[in-house]
């Protein structure tokens, strides 16, 4: 078994989730948690890590069981597995940091219906060996976390003048409060998507020239 090409392709897969197919900026998936909890960088990181954990565990398990699961009941099985890991994350977060749990609220449990996870399970983990599924899930998870962090940090800096709760601009900064309110979530995500669409367009134009 040749390890070198396998690793290279793994690396590619990892990067694909982080950059080329970033679930937040490029595919605009999993937006309920993306917008609701990203009022601060800390919450965004917490949510991102929780989702990554669920993604990795459920995709690996699904990939290991892929030969035993009949096609007819595969979605039901996937959902049960995903719900299990979400419940685990829910309890682990409560045990580790009650403050984070209170900030994220019911949105931790809503990870179950995050389209990214079911999408990855169906599109990748169901047809690939565990290692590949793990790498793919890790890439997507990291991409998702980076996306949430980009949103959360922008909203916290603009809306509260802080990053990770540390004040950045001193006394005289008048926070742009609407950014930490619901409309701000839509605006900031919209702007990020616009930025990525513009990048893609520019690249296309360069290739065409």
């Amino acid at each position, binding site marked *: 078994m040749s390890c070198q090409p396998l690793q290279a392709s793994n690396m590619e897969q990892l990067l694909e989730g982080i950059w080329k197919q970033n679930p937040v900026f490029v595919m605009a998936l999993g937006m309920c948690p993306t917008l609701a909890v990203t009022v601060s960088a800390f919450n965004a990181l917490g949510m991102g890590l929780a989702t990554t954990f669920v993604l990795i565990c459920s995709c690996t398990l699904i990939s290991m069981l892929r030969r035993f699961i009949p096609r007819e009941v595969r979605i039901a099985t996937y959902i049960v597995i995903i719900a299990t890991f979400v419940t685990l994350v829910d309890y682990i977060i409560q045990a580790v940091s009650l*403050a984070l749990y209170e900030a994220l609220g019911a949105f931790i449990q809503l990870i179950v219906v995050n389209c990214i996870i079911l999408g990855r399970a169906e599109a990748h983990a169901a047809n690939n060996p565990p290692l590949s599924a793990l790498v793919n899930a890790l890439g997507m998870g990291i991409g998702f976390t980076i996306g949430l962090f980009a949103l959360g940090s922008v909203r916290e800096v603009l809306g509260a003048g802080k990053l990770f709760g540390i004040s950045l601009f001193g006394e005289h900064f008048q926070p742009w409060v609407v950014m930490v309110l619901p409309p701000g979530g839509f605006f900031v995500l919209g702007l990020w998507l616009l930025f990525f669409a513009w990048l893609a367009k520019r690249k296309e134009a360069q290739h065409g020239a």
Partner: protein
Amino acid sequence: MSGEQPIHFVPPVNSLRMVRTLMLVTSLCGGLIVAVWQWTQPAIAANKKVVLERSVRALIPNAAQIVEYDASAKGVTVAKGDAADGAIRFYAAYDKDGKLDAIAAEGAARGYSDTVRVLYGYRQACECIFGIRVTQMRETPGIGDKIITDPAFLQSFEHLDVSLSPDLKSMFNAVKTVKHGSKQFGWEIDAIAGATITSKAVGRGINDSAQRLLPLLVPHLEAIKQKGGAQ
């Protein structure tokens, strides 16, 4: 993917196999959940206790020991698990000599964007609330969240009259939030200008909780004092 496969290549559905697989997967998942639940439960309980004691201590600085009680129509009992239906949870704070210092309890009401929860401290000596601490709120930053910091607003709670009528069945005067600058009586709360809805939510939360709790609590205060002394 399945869309590309002609229908007749799909093997006949074996329902026994489906049921078996589902049962295996669900029991595996159930086992996992129960294991993690058992493993994290002590840590979660400890965490909750730490958070609670921190807010009670912030309200009652010389609390050395905090005991949780449930008050219901049947009397006052030391709390076990979640509060039963109709029972109200409260916290008795004893100082380092085992003397009852004050009582703390939580009130909640809907504010501008979500539920506002406040912990309030009660002392029998003045029959008043002597302070509050907001434990949960998602009000608008810069407007509604002044309930945590606004000194004039917080001053209303330094001596908020919640005395009971002689038959100990209800409060003499309901706690009420009034327009900014028009506070006249000891049971009124001076609202924050521009954040009236949030201020009123605090007042309502405290009023609802105190109206129910105090008539159940006050007749048993002697017993609660005794319990602290015995420990």
